[in-house]
């Protein structure tokens, strides 16, 4: 391993920071193409029904309207396959038979301006023959009606199951029957919104038979592949460019509105921009609401002998990433403990609601809410301090998170201790206050994937790094420039990251699963090392000996203090006159990193690493109103090596702040399938005033034990995992009530307090 320190591990300013804080950074919505038109969508107000008619005549008559598109146009437009998704291709560009949720797009208006399109869209009349909607997972499993009648239920547990997974070992029923104590509870987690600051946006233009798409997507190569398949094109006919993206959080993975926008551009015969409002993004994708039923058995010594988990995830009207979310829920439900007998079942169930997909942490916050609450309650039952209980039972480094998978690569107890220290765990909380903690673990890096990167050292000593990573605000591109600078021994400010363009960028699976720094980062490092090697060999050829050097602007500065102009060296090496500098071109390397595949691993690929988030909270509970105030919170992310400590800490802090939402107040509220609070006036997001009164602490655990460059692990999701169970335990310590449903809003806490004390009221 190269010794680090040139730029790795430093809070190097991000290359995108200046453009972003001065408003110059370009997002999809900022881009205008020549002859571009604007689209507005017509959304169903019915949550389930059969479309009997869509009357577009009035909208088409509006001056400035170019065309109106419905599902009936798809065949005529020559769409080969109108459906998209990941493992389950169930989502149509525009449905022409069933509507499956209130808010689903059923028609689109293309017009000269967004204003005209929006006004004309209100004139489209959609007639729907209502079908009884499935509004809860219980209702859906009973299956009075089917959300996707053409699909068979994926499990025998009921109807409307989109995907079903089970991981098990040992004999869980026998072990529970023989346990000294069995803790059993049902934990609920609300459906919540991603709310990325930039709503979904896509621009599509046909150039002859080639397609040019600009989109705020986390997965440009997946979008390219979908568009090629759906529109009968070769992949090399589809170009997807991704400007800066104003937040993703998983809500911009897979295809979202790209296929629709392409269809609109086809009918309009002009470029089309579709820019959603925030309200519409609320109606596009969400985090799965869940019901987790968990039984955990311990022996007389407190050892966990068995855990049985059943996770029911509300996946809404379309599968999207739901099957993967369910799979990982089953995989992660057991938690970071050595449990000989376990069974984890998870299913994604269709309902007539906004679809649910990937969301920061995937299903980990949902299963950790159950699993770590259970651990806290078991410790309490046994009369053991919850920190001590975890010290005794958390997996040690090298232990099995799951059989035949990557052994635990983290010091869990050490990390949790840091979190506990952050809230002064050993000091008892004053009256009315309480403390709690939790440990959350997810496998990081995602499934099988390829990551590629290209590094170019130009003749003037500047460099470019090309990847397929979307810059969604996370700072991955800053890290890439630091890796290149580290290997080339140059100033990271002289390295420019290039935003994804499928026509020119190296391939990448997608910006998700905390994989970019580790997997793409490894590819970047390999490419940078190769460029450094080529440079070193050139120097050796010219000087007759291997020399150490750094790159300072356009010069190489050698270890003895002498220097040489890079372009002159390159010219000499190629026998070109130095006046031909522009002919020199770059020194280039394209490298890749593939994830391992193992038939034995439960997921088919061993975990790349474990993304570990510990949380410790101190809260104050107003027993009269039920209001819980966060006094202190410490999040500990085990990042292996923080390549840029500032962005790393900011990522974890952002994740923890996001967790304040689902822990305390966030919840998508539906009435008869209609989303009641799908707008920023009524949907409560975390505000600065919600931050812990005495401060939010973020600790980065750096043991250089990750598989990424310089020992890095992925980051950015850990902070969202553990807050809810840590806070719930703190609430219990403060006022003695156990709550198993999120969010812990004042009304819910007050009700729990009421049930606990027979005499509600003052004093």
């Amino acid at each position, binding site marked *: 391993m190269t010794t680090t320190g040139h730029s790795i591990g430093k809070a190097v300013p991000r290359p995108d920071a200046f453009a972003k804080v001065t408003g110059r950074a370009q997002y999809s919505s900022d881009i205008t193409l020549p002859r571009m038109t604007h689209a507005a969508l017509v959304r169903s107000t019915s949550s389930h029904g059969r479309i009997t008619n869509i009357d577009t005549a009035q909208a088409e008559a509006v001056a400035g309207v170019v065309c109106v598109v419905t599902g009936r146009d798809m065949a005529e437009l020559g769409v080969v396959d109108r459906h998209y998704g990941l493992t389950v291709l169930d989502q149509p560009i525009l449905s022409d038979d069933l509507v499956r949720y209130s808010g689903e797009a059923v028609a689109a208006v293309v017009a000269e301006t967004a204003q005209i399109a929006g006004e004309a869209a209100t004139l489209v009349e959609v007639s729907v023959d209502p079908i009884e909607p499935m509004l809860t997972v219980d209702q859906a499993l009973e299956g009075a009606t089917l959300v996707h009648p053409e699909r068979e239920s994926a499990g025998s547990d009921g109807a409307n199951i989109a995907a079903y997974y089970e991981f098990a070992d040992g004999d869980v029923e026998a072990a529970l029957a023989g346990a000294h104590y069995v803790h059993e509870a049902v934990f609920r987690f609300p459906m919540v919104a991603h709310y990325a600051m930039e709503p979904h946006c896509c621009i599509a233009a046909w150039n002859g038979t080639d397609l040019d798409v600009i989109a705020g997507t986390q997965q440009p190569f997946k979008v390219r592949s979908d568009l090629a398949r759906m529109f009968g094109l070769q992949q090399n006919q589809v170009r997807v460019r991704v400007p800066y993206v104003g937040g993703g959080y998983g809500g911009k993975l897979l295809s979202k509105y790209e296929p629709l926008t392409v269809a609109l551009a086809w009918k309009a015969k002009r470029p089309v921009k579709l820019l959603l409002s925030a309200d519409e993004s609320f109606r596009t994708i969400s985090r799965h609401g869940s019901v987790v039923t968990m039984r955990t058995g311990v022996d007389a010594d407190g050892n966990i002998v068995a855990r049985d988990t059943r996770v029911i995830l509300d996946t809404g009207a379309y599968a999207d990433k739901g099957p993967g979310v369910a799979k990982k829920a089953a995989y992660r439900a057991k938690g970071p403990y050595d449990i000989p007998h376990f069974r984890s079942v998870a299913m994604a169930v269709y309902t007539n609601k906004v679809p649910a997909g990937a969301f920061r942490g995937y299903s980990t916050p949902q299963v950790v809410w159950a699993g770590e609450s259970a651990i806290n309650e078991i410790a309490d039952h046994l009369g053991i301090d919850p920190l001590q209980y975890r010290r005794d039972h958390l997996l040690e480094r090298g232990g099995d998170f799951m059989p035949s998978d990557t052994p635990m690569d983290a010091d869990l107890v050490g990390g949790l201790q840091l979190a506990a220290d952050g809230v002064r765990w050993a000091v008892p909380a004053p009256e009315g206050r309480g403390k709690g903690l939790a440990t959350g673990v997810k496998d990081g890096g995602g499934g099988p994937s390829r990551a590629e990167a290209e590094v170019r050292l130009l003749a003037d000593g500047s460099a470019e790094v090309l990847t397929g990573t979307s810059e969604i605000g996370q700072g991955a591109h800053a890290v890439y420039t630091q890796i290149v600078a580290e290997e080339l021994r140059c100033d990271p400010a002289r390295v420019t990251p290039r935003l994804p363009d499928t026509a020119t960028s190296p391939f990448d699976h997608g910006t998700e699963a905390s994989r970019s720094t580790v997997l793409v980062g490894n590819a970047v490092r390999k490419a940078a090392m190769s460029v450094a090697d080529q440079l070193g060999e050139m120097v050796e050829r010219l000087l007759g000996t291997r020399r150490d050097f750094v790159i300072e602007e356009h010069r190489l500065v050698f270890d003895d203090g002498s220097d040489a102009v890079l372009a002159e060296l390159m010219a000499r090496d190629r026998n070109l006159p130095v006046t031909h500098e522009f002919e020199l071109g770059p020194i280039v390397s394209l490298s890749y990193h593939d994830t391992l595949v193992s038939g034995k691993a439960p997921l088919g690929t061993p975990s790349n690493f474990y993304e570990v988030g510990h949380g410790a909270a101190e809260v104050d509970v107003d027993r009269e109103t039920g209001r819980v105030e966060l006094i202190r919170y410490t999040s500990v992310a085990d990042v292996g090596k923080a390549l840029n400590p500032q962005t790393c800490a900011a990522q974890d802090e952002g994740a923890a702040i996001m967790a304040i939402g689902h822990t305390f107040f966030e919840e998508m509220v539906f009435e008869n399938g209609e989303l009641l609070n799908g707008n920023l*006036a009524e949907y409560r997001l975390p505000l600065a005033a919600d931050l812990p009164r005495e401060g939010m602490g973020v600790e980065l655990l750096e043991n250089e034990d990750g598989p990424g460059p310089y020992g890095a692990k992925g980051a950015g999701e850990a902070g969202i995992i553990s807050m809810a169970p840590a806070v719930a335990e703190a609430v219990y310590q403060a006022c003695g009530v156990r709550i198993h449903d999120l969010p812990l809003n004042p009304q819910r806490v007050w009700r729990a307090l009421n049930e606990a004390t027979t005499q509600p009221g*003052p*004093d």
Partner: protein
Amino acid sequence: MGLPRFNLHRPQTVDEAVALLNQHAGSAQIYMGGTELLLLMKRGLARPEHLIDCKSVAELGELNLNGGGDWSIGAGVTHRRLELDVDMARLLPSFVELEQHLANVRVRNVGTLGGNLCFAEPHSDPATLLIALGATAEIASPTGRRHVPLEDFFVWAFTTVIEPNEVLTRVLIPPLEENSSVRFERLAFRDRPAANLAYVRRDDTHRIVAGAVGTKPQRLREAETVAAGGGNSAAIFAAATAEVEPVEDASLEVDYKRHLIGVLAKRAVASV
């Protein structure tokens, strides 16, 4: 969706504004800060053909502390001006503190007191306190000005006594005696309050007003009687919870709102 089309009028006087309203009755709206109206228009929930922008009407922007200690607050005075007014901070600190917590600074910079009251969103803080202070609304109509006690101003959620051809011109707050006490309590779980309560004691009169839980602010007369009789916290709590008339909304249920008003009443009276 963006804003739908509308015609913008910019009267310079209250009379001009009233004339415009009269001319376009039913299809015109007074437009000041726009913090509520423009949101409704963007969401297609309001489609006025005419917006009458009264920001240039000087009279509406007047904020006066009169010689008798009474206040005259023009309907167009922004929350921010009230929040930063030094005389108000000295004489009505509860009102200033209320304004400091109203929505957020961007809203306070443009949102007006008149707009807040005329919109009659039930989750309003100023309405609750102003009623407890005994404030009066001055309303201009085509036939002249009329005065309505703020207590009688609100009819229902989003509905006031103002006719389509009338303009709220000012809010008048009577002077507070030296020994009076003003207390405003508020609980907010989001931008708007979940429950609020004002308690004003002047000599032997006690006014308690509950807000944000029902369709409009409500005088709690039983609780006032208990307070006047020197009743203890439990009695105040009992009276307030018994008489308050909350309505359920998307996030809070009636029994919880009732309880919150009891808690706030108890706290407000105890703190005076």
